[in-house]
């Protein structure tokens, strides 16, 4: 009887070890699957681009005086301090991963006045498509006056691709 009890104790010990390994394995799997998923920060990046563009266009609450000039349009990236450089992986350098388009409208008539485009325009074709492999597109608008109190609507479209690192 004593021998039998000892055998039973051994089986219970093995059982406990098996349970311990199953629980530990499950916890490790949960941690790996949680932290293994990438953070998708492309929406935050798109908001940051939009805010930076808006800050650049606004001068003490009024539209930057040069904003509608050809010189500003041509040197937009330098004037506003954008940096569209990316890591040299997944062929990102050849295919730009960012795009910004700024459209100026007359607020009263809704007529287009000027457009500033910079970055990889080809990304625009993927906007509106739903799915994880597509870039994040953010389109926002704001209202602004120039110093002569003319009213404008400014639409900013910011696109961030970088799907390889943000989506798995």
């Amino acid at each position: 009887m004593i021998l039998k009890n000892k055998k039973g104790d051994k089986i219970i010990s093995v059982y406990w070890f098996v349970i311990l390994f199953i629980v530990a394995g499950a916890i490790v799997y949960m941690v790996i699957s949680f932290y293994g998923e990438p953070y998708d920060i492309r929406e935050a990046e798109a908001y940051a681009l939009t805010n930076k563009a808006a800050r650049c266009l606004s001068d003490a609450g009024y539209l930057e005086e040069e904003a509608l000039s050809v010189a500003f349009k041509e040197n937009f990236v330098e004037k506003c301090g954008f940096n569209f450089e990316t890591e040299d992986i997944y062929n990102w350098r050849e295919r730009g991963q960012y795009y910004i388009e700024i459209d100026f409208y007359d607020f009263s008539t809704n007529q287009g006045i000027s457009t500033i485009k910079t970055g990889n325009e080809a990304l625009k074709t993927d906007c509106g498509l739903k799915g994880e492999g597509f870039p994040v597109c953010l389109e926002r608008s704001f209202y602004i006056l120039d110093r002569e109190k003319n009213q404008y609507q400014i639409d900013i479209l910011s696109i961030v691709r970088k799907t390889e690192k943000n989506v798995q």
Partner: protein
Amino acid sequence: MFNKKIRVFLKDKRSQIGETMTWVVATVIIIIILLISIFIATSYLGKNKGTDFLSKQSDLLASESFFAYLLTEDSEGQTVHEQLKNEENLNDFNGNLAIKIFDGFYKEEYPDVWVGIIPHTGPLTFIKNKYFGSEPSGIGGQYSWSLITKKSHISQRIPLNENKSVELVLTHE
């Protein structure tokens, strides 16, 4: 003597079966709990992480629009800020302009948009206007409600004089 031995043996066997069944059930429960935890960790928590920092505390574009709105002049050259300072509530010019700007630009992003006047006297109250209604949803001095409905607010308040301010409130989930 022999019968007694058999009885003890059977009793022992029965208690062993009972104990084994307890552990089998316990094992099944442990495995079910683990499977549920794994499912939640992989399919829900893992996919939705990293977006909390996007919950907005301010909106630069809406603020820019609000400042420009207050600087807009009517046909007599009076700014919206001056009009609101001198009048009791929104008028047709600044009310319709506010609708065009804030409902037009931000209604898709924020389900509830409110622009209006707030008196400085007493507890937080919103002066009803015909363009945006009585008060932003989830506020009205009852902040606990906004906690229950998980709504949060972005607001921009500009003082008009010592008695009142004009406020833009954008409510989002």
